[in-house]
Each structure stands twice: as C-alpha cells, then as structure tokens.
C-alpha cells in the first residue's frame, strides 16, 4: 500500500515577530515526524512567494498593513483549513497596542521627533505597504477555522494541535498547554 498523500501546509507571519515560527521549530526532533506527513508550500521555511492550493494554512501575526490583507485573503482562498496561530493573529497582540494612538502621530514620533533623528520624514516609498489605521485580529477579515493561542504557543502545544489536525481530529489543547502568554 502506498503511503498516504502528504498534506500541503503554508505558513506566513503577518504583523508578527516570527516567534510562532520559531516555536514551530521548537518541536525539535518531532520535525522529522512532521515532515513525513506534510510538505511545505509558501512559508518562510521555503521562501515560496505565493500560496498554492493547500490543506492547512498557519497564520502568525495580526493585520497591520495592506500587504497583510492581500496575503491573508490569498491564504483563505487557497487553504482548506486556516489556523490563527498566536496572540497577534488572535487579538492583534503587541502591534495592536498602537490602536489607541493616532497613526500619523505614531509615525511622526518615530521618524521625525525622536531623539537623535533630524531632518527625516515619514517614509513614503510606493513599495512600502500602506499601514492600516488599526491593527486587526485575522478573524475580523476572513473566516478562521481554528485558533491556537499563546505568545508564542509552545512547541508542545503546536505539536499537539498539528497532530490532531493532521490526523483529522478536532484540535484540542489539554490543560497546561492552553496559554495566552
């Protein structure tokens, strides 16, 4: 009997710090088990630029700019199961701490008025994605199938979650692996 088809998995970090991706690597030697059962499509691990048709999409980070919106919609369109991974994807996280502030004030403070900065302006290169006025959790833009909380979710939590998902079970985090920090 031939081995079952490997599941295709895409991952991305939107307004995140790649900490969740680092945590994925924290599953350590279980990476060998994982790679027996999945193959990676678009991901920082492969450097593929666009998401193909996938079984599972893992989204790290919230939505803070126009590019994030495009990437998130592409993932939703091409992934059967989309998972919000980590605090930022689920509630905006650290980047969303700017949501109380006026975006223009924020940018001017950083690029014009900060100590040691003089004569500079807010960057406006057309290649730079435009910032949204607020940072949004991903579920406010597209339908999300599952949420994996944590900042970051531990390697054990990611492994437990992915094991369920790959085996076709509803993912469930046991006590001790469910953390918001």
């Amino acid at each position, binding site marked *: 009997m031939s081995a079952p088809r490997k599941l295709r998995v895409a991952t991305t970090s939107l307004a995140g710090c790649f900490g969740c991706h680092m945590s994925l690597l924290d599953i350590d030697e279980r990476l060998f088990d994982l790679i027996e059962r999945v193959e990676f499509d678009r991901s920082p691990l492969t450097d593929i630029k666009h998401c193909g048709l996938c079984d599972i999409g893992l989204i790290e980070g919230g939505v803070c700019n126009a590019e994030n919106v495009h990437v998130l919609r592409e993932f939703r369109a091409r992934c059967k199961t989309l998972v919000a991974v980590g605090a930022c994807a*689920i509630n*905006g996280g650290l980047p*969303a701490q700017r*949501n*109380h502030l006026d975006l223009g004030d924020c940018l001017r403070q950083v690029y014009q008025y900060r100590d040691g900065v003089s004569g500079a302006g807010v960057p406006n290169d057309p290649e730079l994605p435009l910032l949204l006025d607020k940072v949004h959790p991903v579920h406010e833009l597209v339908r999300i199938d599952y*949420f994996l909380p944590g900042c970051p979710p531990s390697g054990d939590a990611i492994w437990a979650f992915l094991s369920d998902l790959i085996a076709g079970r509803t993912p469930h985090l046991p*006590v*001790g692996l469910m953390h*918001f*920090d």
Partner: protein
Amino acid sequence: MSGQFLLDGQAVPFDDGQTILEAARAAGHYIPHLCWHPDFPPHGSCKLCIVKVGGRHVSSCALQAADGMEVDSSSAEIRGERRTLLQMLFVEGNHFCPSCEKSGNCELQAQAYEHEMMSARFAYLFPLRPVDASHPDILLDFNRCIFCELCVRASRDVDGKSVFALTNRGIHKHLVVNAESGRLADTDFSVDDLAANICPVGVILKKRSGFKVPIGERKYDAQPISRVSLEDES
C-alpha cells in the same frame, strides 16, 4: 429549610439560606465565578456562575438553594453561554496577556482556559483607558477591569476608605478613583488594604513585584481554576 438539590445529576445537600453556589462549593463541586467572593455578599454582575434551574437561566451565587431543584451547570449550552460572557469581557477591555504581570495568576484568563476560549470571536473595542502610576506602591491598569467591584466593595466595606467607584453606565462604565484629582496618590490607599489584594485580574498591581514567579510555576499554569479554587478553600 434544608434539603438537597441535584447539580448535574448529583445530589448536593444545603443548609438554610445557602445559595446554589455556596452549597455546591461546600460539597466539593465547582461553579465558575468572577465577581463572587466568599467574604462578600453576592454581587451578581459577572453572570459567569449562570446555571439553568427549571428552564430559567439564573445566577447561582444569588439564588438560594431549594429542596428538589434540578440545576444544570455543565451542559454544552451553559458552558457556551459562559464562554460568550468571557469573550465579551475580553473584547470590552484591553486584555493583552503577554505583557500583563497578572498573567498566570489571573482569574479571567484562567476562566478562559477553563472554558476553552480559543478566540474572543467578537470585534475588539480597544477602549482608551490610561493607567494611573501615581501611587508609590501600586499601579492601576484600568485596561483590564471587568467591573466585578471587588475593590470597590473591599475598600468601602472592609478598609473603610471608599477609594474606588464605578462611574457611567453600559459600555461607558469604568472604574474611577475617589479623589478630586482622580489620582490614586491623592487617596489614603495602602498596599496593605484588602482592596489592594483582591483584584481577580491585573488592574491593581503591587509595584516592584511583577513577574517574580516564573512561567510554569504560576497559579493557573498547570492546574485549571476549577481545581485550584476548591483546593484554596479546603
């Protein structure tokens, strides 16, 4: 009157005047709660202790037990309602757990774990709630307030200082400090007050003691609040 009622099919004895929640705890059964505290009369504001009795949704912290009652506290319907209440509390405030000193010891967070709240589901409101760091020993971070009024009640009824109050109504409700300036430093609030030690979330924080307990050893890191809460009492 005393007697017994059925909690999720199990017989629970009660004494005269005991509420459903009190009798359940005395018999070793946990009903989730946030604004209820054993040393204070029922407040009935968080509604997390909601149970179903005779087809009606009631606050178990406030309803006196009666003989023969059939109480549903753990059906998917009741757990789902509690999860929704938690989700609304999360989006109403700014509960950014990774930066909160209370994380791991926070009852709101622990209830979210208990009820498998994987996301807040609703759109976050991101309210503007500036902190008050004026007091030498205490930091007030209003972002996390869930309006349980435990600090209000403790300061008024036990400490005799009435340092805190809730003001405005509905979605505009918020915690204020009872001083003309509105600053905690301009009150006689002390780090030894009961009100300084009763906040279930991360609003009233002692300075210079944050993050002392490492992740993994905090109150609700390894055990669910349903177990920790009953162990605390016994």
